[in-house]
């Protein structure tokens, strides 16, 4: 499997480490009301779709960047690869 790294181009999947659902980017505010319930869902609740899935991958044996990979879990087709940094900034999570 090849992952088309946004900076480095196509790289072998064995250079990457898989973390899981890209929803992990949406860490709840620990001081907000209902934080305990929000953290419970954040830590334990995962969708398991047969089809398109957004995932976090780490380019450990490369440039050590975190990526958000949109992958079809049925066909393993990779539809989109973005730097997690760009995704987080777009959502206003990082400056």
């Amino acid at each position, binding site marked *: 499997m090849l992952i088309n790294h946004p900076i480095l181009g196509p790289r072998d999947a064995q250079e990457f480490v898989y973390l899981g659902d890209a929803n992990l980017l949406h860490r709840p505010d620990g001081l907000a009301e209902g934080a305990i319930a929000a953290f419970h869902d954040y830590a334990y609740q995962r969708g398991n779709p047969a089809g398109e899935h957004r995932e976090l991958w780490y380019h450990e*044996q490369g440039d*050590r960047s975190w990526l958000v990979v949109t992958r079809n879990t049925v066909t393993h087709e990779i539809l989109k690869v973005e730097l997690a*940094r760009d995704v987080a900034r777009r959502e206003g999570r990082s400056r």
Partner: protein
Amino acid sequence: MANLKPLTALGHDAPEVLSIGAVRISERFDVALASVAARRGKAGDLASAAQGIGLPLPAPATHQAGDPWSAFWVAPEMWFVEAPFASHEDIAARLKAALGDTTSVTEQTDAWVRFDIAAPDLAPLFERLSNLDLARAPVGFASRTVIEHVGTYLVKRAAGEVVLYGPRSSAASLLHVLEVTAKSLL
């Protein structure tokens, strides 16, 4: 004062040099190394400070040679800087003084072992060692890659010349796999 004797990464007092067929593997310990990373939102400041001291900050996946500073890209807004050890033993302090608060500088010299590998055609050697397509990579290509489970930085300095940085604690293992693979080509 104690009479201290410096050792190379392989634990000897002189660098190791091997010639196996057409392949020559030479350990280098005369290069000082430091990493330079722009702090958040300070990439522009780093670029202008670097220009002031003639420090190259090459594009992704490339190496740029210079005098005294050479550098290769390792991650977004992060580079490894090389300089002659004899004149720049204090490389991190010098870079920090020149680049200031825009940059995080980390001393790397003693964390790595460096092997210079030369052969008229390096493709048969590296297609057995790494998944990078070295034959098609342009001169000046630099990338992290895995060689026998060891994470290394590979720089293609010329058509038949590659520089490899591996973790110093794995120096002997890395040399072993280079040696075994070079012998398998004979």
